[in-house]
């Protein structure tokens, strides 16, 4: 069996108490903790290499530039990008999606259609909605059931009007995996572009963008053991080239006069301004961390934690569980007549960090008929004791809060 205890050694934050309890961190879908090597990478950069990248010609700027571009290659290999220069650094998933939604505006006609699933995070919904407002194109929602099944004949949704299909790989709110391979295939059949939101997948599943063959794939560093403030927009070269840069300025230009600006080549064309260098290096270190462990075994472990919590809770009256019992790395539920935030508060008072609320997915909450859910999400450093402790403490909370 997989051993989370040795991995925990790499995460100093998990060794501290929360109030007078041991900290039980189960809010990993919001953000993961960072292993020492990511912190050392950032520190090492500032202690031995820091300089502005690309334009300089001196000892430090050479170092910084080559480390920065090596980090890009590390990430490209990590997601199996077919070519170099297909990874664009962004602030995170949100910026990556916005970059595409803005960048393709010039390609959108009023009678085009934009497709998203009904399980999207606001980050993969609002940018498309606003794009549809600006262009007149129609935003259409493919209704998936909460167990990730097509609710309707897909043929009703995909047509030659479909310009782009944006779909999450894993739902952050209820942990279910969507059939993205099929989604991408249907999109290709009608000649539509595809964007996959990998924010919740990248820390758990091996990802090969060349196998998926999507046009864009996006994710955030902070949800895969990397730093905040850095994320990735992967794109096929021609897809990236079709994007109008949404930000302009230094780095992304070749030549500027007052009358005209000639933009730079990819990937720089989509990276205006000084990049988040420490973030890129930290994210590359996080890729190394993930690859150093048996990703298959880690995934199985995380799923077994969610399943354990599920089996403790599934037969309790009043508890409704929205996440799948198997193949999910999180558990998401609500309790009748008991407010999520009260449960959340009780768990917190015992040192257990979970997330209660709508998980930035209001329309999905409406589909589920709840105002929010309580979500415990697992990472490689979580133990079986923690999964059990969460479930048992939740039962305690329900009892206490339903007292009168």
């Amino acid at each position, binding site marked *: 069996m997989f051993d989370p205890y040795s991995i925990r050694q790499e995460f100093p934050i998990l060794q501290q108490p929360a*109030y*007078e309890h041991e900290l039980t961190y189960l809010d990993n879908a919001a953000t993961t903790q960072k292993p020492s090597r990511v912190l050392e990478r950032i520190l090492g950069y500032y202690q031995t290499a820091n300089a502005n990248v690309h334009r300089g010609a001196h000892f430090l700027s050479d170092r910084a530039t080559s480390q920065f571009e090596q980090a890009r290659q590390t990430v490209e290999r990590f997601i199996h990008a077919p070519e170099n220069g297909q990874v664009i650094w962004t602030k995170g998933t949100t910026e990556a999606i916005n970059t595409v939604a803005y960048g393709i505006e010039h390609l959108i006609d009023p009678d085009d259609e934009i497709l998203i699933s009904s399980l999207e995070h606001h980050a993969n919904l609002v940018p498309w909605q606003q794009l549809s407002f600006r262009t007149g194109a129609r935003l259409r929602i493919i209704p998936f059931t909460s167990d990730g099944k097509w609710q309707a004949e897909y043929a009703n949704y995909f047509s030659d009007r479909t310009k782009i299909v944006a779909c999450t790989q894993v739902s952050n709110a209820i942990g279910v995996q969507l059939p993205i391979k099929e989604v991408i295939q249907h999109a290709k059949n009608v000649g539509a572009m595809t964007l996959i939101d990998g924010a919740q997948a990248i820390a758990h599943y091996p990802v090969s963008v060349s196998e998926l063959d999507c046009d864009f794939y996006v994710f955030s560093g902070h949800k895969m053991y990397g730093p905040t403030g850095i994320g990735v927009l992967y794109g096929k070269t021609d897809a990236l080239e079709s994007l109008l840069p949404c930000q302009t300025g230094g780095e992304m230009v070749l030549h500027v006069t007052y009358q005209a600006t000639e933009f730079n080549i990819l990937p720089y064309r989509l990276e205006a301004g000084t990049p988040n260098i420490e973030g890129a290096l930290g994210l590359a270190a996080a890729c190394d961390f993930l690859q150093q462990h048996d990703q298959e075994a880690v995934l199985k472990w995380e799923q077994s934690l969610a399943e354990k919590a599920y089996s403790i809770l599934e037969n309790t009256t009043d508890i409704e569980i929205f996440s799948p019992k198997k193949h999910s790395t999180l558990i998401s539920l609500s309790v009748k007549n008991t*407010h*999520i*935030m*009260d449960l959340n*508060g*009780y768990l*917190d*008072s*015992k040192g257990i960090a979970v997330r*209660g*609320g*709508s998980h930035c997915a209001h329309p999905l909450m409406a589909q589920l008929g709840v*105002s*929010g859910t309580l979500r415990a999400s697992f990472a490689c450093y979580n133990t079986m004791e923690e999964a059990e402790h969460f479930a048992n403490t939740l039962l305690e909370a329900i009892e*206490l*809060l339903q007292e*009168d």
Partner: protein
Amino acid sequence: MESPSLSSIQAQLQACHSKEDTFRTLVTLSKTLPRLSNDEKADEHKIKGCESAVWLIIEHNHTDFPQFKADSDAKLMRGVLAAILSLVNGKSTTEIQAMDLSSLMSSLNLGSYLTSSRTNGVLAILDKISCR
């Protein structure tokens, strides 16, 4: 149940020496807050930006002493609301405007139930209460 006085609320919260104590005290306090009617829980009285639903009504009744009523669908928040209202109920508009509500709140020993301001929307509530 009669609304407890500010000093009693203060005493109860001050006596809490752990997050668990505070949790239980707030749940107990929540029982002292009268419920609003369904009519009163209208959208116009709803405070935006809270993870739990919060309604706040300020009745002026042609006097200088506004009457505050509040409710929430979450117990913890009802407890917090009971504490907040004890600070201002019975006070005149002028007195309330002169109060530094957020530092008074900090003195209540509510700890992180106040710091995560966007989660519970306490700041938005104080804003509305401060009558400015």
